């Protein structure tokens, strides 16, 4: 019996001799593994970014928000062009929810519905009254200045914290000293005391990202606007009466979040029986749904990969059978020189395994290349996992063993007398 190192060296030498043929032979495995690696890294990347977005909303939170009813049921026409709308989550709702079991605290957000202008241009920014805990509960970070003090929640003032997009849109690029400068929102003049940034992609229903908010303490908001949010539409004044746009309900125990969400929904269904002017999102549920979808996707992907590897393997088996026929004189010579049947068997088997494994290596490189290109041109994040590469390599070797055994056995069974005479 020959040494394994000798067999491997021999098969490498033989494959090197037929470079083009070897590459063509393992094309099936190369593309099979390549597409698996590419698709896995794309789906893993998509999964990660979706997960981080969901997580940024807060895994331990239930987001309850006011939703403008499809038909303005609560709207009362007062005169020709003025309109009063009343809908959404109320002070009473908040008090009740705060008393529920498992609710640790509630952070509120209210949009003042003011137009933020820069010259004549209306910007897509929002003036929002927020609670003290908004900063940690929205997973945002202060990048400049400071957050409000508890005292500023007791006494209305004229200070604000702006999101990073607000800074970008209202100030010039070079402006570093935004802290202490004043901004104007309609008739209001506010002093900027801090800049926050949210790089998790947090996005609240109806309100959007904290990066687009000019935040003022909820107390200031109440003092200035009371229950009313006036907005001048073309030709008249629109009055929206809304207590809260978003309630971030933080739960004490994550495992009971489902129950808590159900109880919140039950309560709101009763109190807002007429029109459904609210809704809620449980990020954890989204996360679980996302994971379930991901698992189905992975199963489908693996089946496709499996089929392509089988097809590749059959191709390799065909070529190896042809190769056995083509090299029958070599087989006969080797047998005459003292090779055992098992030597011939292993020579051909290892040759196939080396072929498929190097096909696997090339496939991994191809897959990584494809996902790099996709990341570059389609701006989709991709994530490679070591386990997927290791598994691909292992599976491609296995394909070699499975589809190489029959040709190798054929090679070993050749009668040396007949094959020696072959030309």
């Amino acid at each position, binding site marked *: 019996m020959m*040494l394994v190192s000798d067999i491997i060296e021999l098969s490498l030498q033989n494959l090197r001799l037929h470079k083009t043929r070897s590459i063509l032979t393992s094309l099936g495995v190369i593309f099979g593994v390549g597409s698996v690696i590419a698709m896995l890294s794309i789906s893993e990347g998509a999964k990660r970014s979706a997960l981080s977005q969901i997580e940024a909303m807060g895994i331990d939170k239930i987001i309850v928000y006011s939703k403008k009813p499809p038909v303005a049921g609560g709207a009362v026409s007062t005169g020709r062009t003025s309109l009063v709308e009343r809908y959404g989550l109320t002070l009473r709702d908040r008090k009740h929810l705060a008393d529920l079991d498992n609710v640790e605290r509630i952070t509120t957000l209210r949009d003042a519905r003011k137009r933020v202008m820069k010259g004549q241009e209306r910007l897509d920014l929002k003036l929002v009254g927020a609670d003290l805990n908004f900063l940690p509960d929205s997973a945002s970070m202060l990048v400049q200045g400071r957050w409000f003090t508890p005292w500023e929640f007791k006494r209305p003032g004229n200070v604000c914290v702006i999101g990073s997009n607000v800074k970008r849109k209202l100030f010039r690029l070079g402006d570093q000293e935004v802290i202490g400068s004043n901004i104007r929102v309609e008739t209001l003049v506010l002093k900027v005391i801090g800049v926050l940034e949210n790089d998790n992609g947090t996005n609240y229903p109806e309100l959007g990202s904290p990066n687009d908010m000019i935040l003022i303490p909820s107390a200031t908001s109440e003092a200035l606007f009371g229950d009313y949010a006036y907005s001048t539409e073309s030709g008249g004044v629109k009055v929206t009466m809304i207590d809260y746009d978003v309630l971030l309900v933080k739960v004490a125990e994550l495992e009971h979040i489902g129950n808590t969400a159900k109880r919140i929904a039950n309560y709101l269904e009763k109190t807002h029986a007429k029109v459904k002017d609210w809704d809620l999102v449980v990020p954890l549920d989204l996360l679980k749904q996302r994971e379930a979808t991901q698992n189905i996707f992975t199963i489908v992907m693996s089946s496709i990969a499996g089929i392509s590897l089988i097809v590749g393997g059959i191709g390799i088996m065909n070529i190896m059978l042809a190769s056995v026929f083509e090299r029958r*004189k070599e087989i006969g010579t*080797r047998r005459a*020189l003292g090779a055992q049947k098992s030597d011939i068997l292993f020579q051909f088997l290892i040759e196939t395994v080396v072929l498929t494994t190097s096909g696997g290596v090339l496939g991994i490189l191809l897959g990584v290349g494809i996902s790099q290109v996709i990341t570059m041109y389609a701006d989709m994040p991709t994530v490679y996992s070591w386990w997927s590469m290791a598994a691909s390599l292992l599976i491609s070797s296995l394909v070699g063993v499975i589809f190489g055994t029959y040709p190798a056995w054929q090679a070993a069974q050749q009668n040396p007398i007949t094959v020696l005479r072959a030309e």
Partner: protein
Amino acid sequence: MSQPEVRPCGDDLVLSLRNITKTYNTGELAVPVLKGISFDIYRGQFVGILGTSGSGKSTMLNILGMLDVPTGGDYTLEGIQVGSLADRDQATIRNQKIGFVFQSFNLFNYLTIEQNIEVPMIYNRVPRRKRRERALELAKIVGLGHRLGHRPNQLSGGECQRVAVARSLSNEPAFLLADEPTGNLDEKTGNEIMKLFHTLNRERRMTIVMVTHNPMFEPHYDKVIRLRDGRLEAGGLGQ
């Protein structure tokens, strides 16, 4: 007609055939190819097995080379009854006791000359370093010490056959079994190869069995075995 035989003492017997028969069964018809052949070959003899095509020469070669088993009779190689051995053991004996030289060289084009010479040693599990040393030594013996790194397709026919001879010697076999070794070579190169065999035989006391239809080299042989129609031709054996 045959030269006086070199006949050393009894334990220098390399191989002996006793009443060897070979019958091929093609369907219902039994075709006898070898019909009872007996002869001995001693160490250091240069033996020519001659015969026209159809004489049973190839079958004789296959049996001597242990690629085929006889239907009847005994084949003893260095005291071992080899006719009835299992496939595994036959391969081992081919590897260690028989040095094959083929008509069309049968070198591997994807290996270097050095690696070609090493092939039988690989199957004999000779360590890598020893294989290298031995390959170099053998290449020098056949006059190709300077071409170890080349590949067979860079060599002439005569040089290829020299490599094949070096390869056949690698495991220090009991005898060389050459099958028409000059059949694919022109006359001049053929003579050179014959000279190489002659030198190996005379200077290194290598036992050589050459199967050929070419009667031209008869003067080289110590002993000539003539086959005709599956039998030894009368007077063909100096025994």
